[in-house]
């Protein structure tokens, strides 16, 4: 019998709440926000299916202070989700070699973000016109 007796430290159950992982946890929660917003849109679609009265009620609900506040929160979640999504994007690809050197990950993120913003702009302009 040797002296050896490795000690196993339990992982903190609330590790995701600690300062080090806070940014990660917020990012993951933003995904919940995206799902909730999907629910809102689905609710709107369903109300269209149910008829003009239901749709009008839905539109009225949208202008309530609660719905406004909810949409602000969801907008923040969508933005966080989108930006962190594009930050993660280069991590999911093999290194892009152009001209003998690796393309910096920031460049890929910025390019993708740029394209996303252009598309958003196009949709908004299209919707407004």
């Amino acid at each position, binding site marked *: 019998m040797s002296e050896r007796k*490795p*000690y196993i*430290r339990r992982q903190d159950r609330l590790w995701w709440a600690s300062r080090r992982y806070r940014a*990660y946890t917020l990012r993951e929660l933003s995904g919940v926000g995206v799902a909730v917003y999907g629910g809102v849109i689905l609710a709107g679609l369903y109300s269209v299916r149910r008829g003009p009265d239901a749709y009008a009620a839905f539109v009225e609900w949208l202008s309530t202070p609660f719905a406004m506040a909810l949409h602000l929160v969801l907008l923040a979640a969508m933005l966080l989700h989108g930006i962190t999504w594009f930050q993660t994007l280069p*991590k999911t690809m*093999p*290194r892009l*070699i152009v*001209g003998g050197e*690796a393309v910096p990950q920031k460049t890929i993120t910025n390019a993708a973000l740029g394209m996303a913003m252009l598309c958003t702009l196009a949709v908004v302009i299209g919707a407004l016109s």
Partner: protein
Amino acid sequence: MADQARHAIELQILRYRPAQDDEPYFVSYKVDYTDEMSVLEALQSIKDDQDGSLSFRWSCRMAVCGSCGMMIEGEPKLACSTFLRDLAPGPVRIAPLENFPIERDLVVTVADFVKKIESIYPFIMPKEKKPVEAGEYLQTPAQMAAYEPFSDCINCMLCYAACPQFGANPDFIGPGAMALLQRYNGDSRDTGSRERLDLIHGEDGVWSCTAVGLCSEACPKLVDPANAVNQNKTNSAFDFFLRALRKEHRP
């Protein structure tokens, strides 16, 4: 030797001696330090002058051997390249690398990690067989750029300490082993990616990873293990898909 300003700093070090302790506990030490002193040098001065029983791994002192990884103020760091001047005025909490069992004091169990890197077929399976007499395989700088950062891993395990999913699942293959796997898969001279596929599937393969990304932040050598793990999720998914298709076609 020019006179150096000397300051004092307190280090709180997590101690554990299996022979006499049931649990680890913090012990406080005071060290006089100069501006260029590293945490490793502080530990050495404690061992030499105050408490010879403090055990820790170290060797090269220049962040290339990977021995001296530990938690310094809650962050996984190499003790030899972490400087007291950046931690002043202290106190500085020092603990063994997180997510690993403690053998003693700041020494953790490394064997499981080594088994992981041994398991991924960490050697060239040559695409084209060629005797040594025929000279070197050609590899352009562009081809090398595709895998070179993954080959810089010093096996220090800071990425494992940073990864909460490894903390939750000790059988997760983990960032370091995946970096080495991708180092070989990405090498133009190698043709072993099929053999290595089996290792990347499932919860103990890449799928414990939820892209926390702190592994790449903790890495002292800019290896970017998060990239190695996450790009292989695509490979794993494709392989799963293709296998399912192939099964369908079998009578």
